[in-house]
């Protein structure tokens, strides 16, 4: 049901954890739905220099979380805001249809973290 890439990211997720004193925190999902993601970011010079995640959820949720952290790191805020749930799924060679809506929230979590950063820095 999952692509090899999803399984690889599920099994060996990168960037697990929480950044201490993060510049932004984003949390999306709801444990009632079975998926919850928290992303913390560190921003320097308008670039995302560190991203970490914690995820309660299925393999798709964990893999997308890990993938977004890898995709976001090194990007400018503007570039990071262009990342979509769709592009995360594509980078994982697709997700099962049933997982597209509920477990594919990683870009949302990143955007929430960025908005939190922007709020704090204004």
């Amino acid at each position: 049901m999952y692509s090899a890439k999803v399984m690889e990211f599920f099994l060996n997720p990168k960037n697990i954890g929480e950044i201490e004193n993060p510049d932004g925190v984003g949390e999306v999902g709801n444990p009632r739905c079975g998926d919850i993601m928290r992303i913390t970011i560190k921003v320097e010079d308008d670039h995302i220099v560190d991203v970490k995640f914690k995820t309660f959820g299925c393999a798709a949720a964990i893999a997308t979380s890990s993938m977004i952290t890898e995709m976001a790191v090194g990007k400018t805020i503007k570039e990071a805001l262009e990342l979509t749930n769709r592009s995360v799924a594509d980078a994982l060679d697709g997700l099962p249809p049933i997982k597209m809506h509920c477990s594919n929230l990683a870009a949302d979590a990143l955007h929430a973290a960025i908005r939190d950063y922007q709020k704090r820095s204004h």
Partner: protein
Amino acid sequence: MGTIYLDHAATTPVHPRVLKAMLPYLQEQYGNPSGVYHLAREAKKALEAARERVAQFIGAQAQEIVFTSGGTESDNMALQGVARANRGRGNHIITTSIEHHAVLDTALALEKEGFSVTYLPVDEYGLVRVADLKKAIRDDTILISIMYANNEVGTIQPIGDIGRVAREHNIIFHTDAVQAAGYLPLDVNRDGVDLLSLSAHKLYGPKGVGALYIRKGTRIDTLLKGGGQERKWRPGTENVAGIVGLGEAVGLAREKMQERGARLRHLRDMLIAGVLGGIDFARLNGHPEKRLPGNAHFIFEFIEGESLLLSLDLEGIAGSSGSACTSGSLEPSHVLLAMGIPHELAHGSLRLTLGDGNTEEDIKRVLAVLPPVVKRLRDMSPLYSQNAEVSNC
């Protein structure tokens, strides 16, 4: 190192003796039982011998057994058939909130047709209260459908008491015995059962064949219309090999019931003790004693079931999260919710169901593998550090 299969409630391997009994009917004994020639009569004989065995298995008469394509069809036939045939007499049906979807979704569909359905609640162990049943009975109640044992948490219902109540009120009583068969004694007369569903693949028989017991005189419509097979109760060319397999499977189950139960109970208790003793924030679901001998059902707080299953799979352990047919879905189990378990916990369930092939070695390996897998997922979980002692990731 092979897979450790711990999903026997989803399906069981076909027992070699069952396959052996089936094979002639997939080879030279290919007759259609409806024919008049020799080859056909041989198939017919095999069919009737299987019917006799199934009847004996549940204390019924052979002519009260109808072969179907499995538990789902048996359940649908029981509910749809009784509802439609008794529409004139009443339109109220009683079932429970923890039935298999084959019963539950049929009941929901009947509601759309104008029937009124009461879904009895269960207690925290998944047990129906007979007092609730008595209160729910109305003058126009035509059917009570309550499962013998639950497929998720393994809780065993007081089927004899329920049967007595049904009989006192002269209401047709159906029980889904798909999970109970082979583990609990079945006796339709002792328990006052009018309709009983079986499925072969849960007791070391093939997939795609089952039976419905229909007590003589029960008012029930057929689901399928067509040829004269099964005395018109269930038309369609009979799955002869499958039916012979079901016959052999119930024969085997009768022989083995005692020994199988004792073995499984021992392994199960070892597994439960090991898990609860070795992992924090773990709990057992279902009734501590009134449970199927092979069923162990846990919740691990702060983690989600599917990622747990996949992690176990990668270690060669096959388990399930709730019932097999809903593991593609994102909804938490309706059974756990009915037992009062909150959504967020219900997502973290693991069902391990034991069978003939399992050994103490298997259990030891599960007990070795499970704690680090749970730890790894908890370390990733944003709920764990918030809710419990801080993890050191």
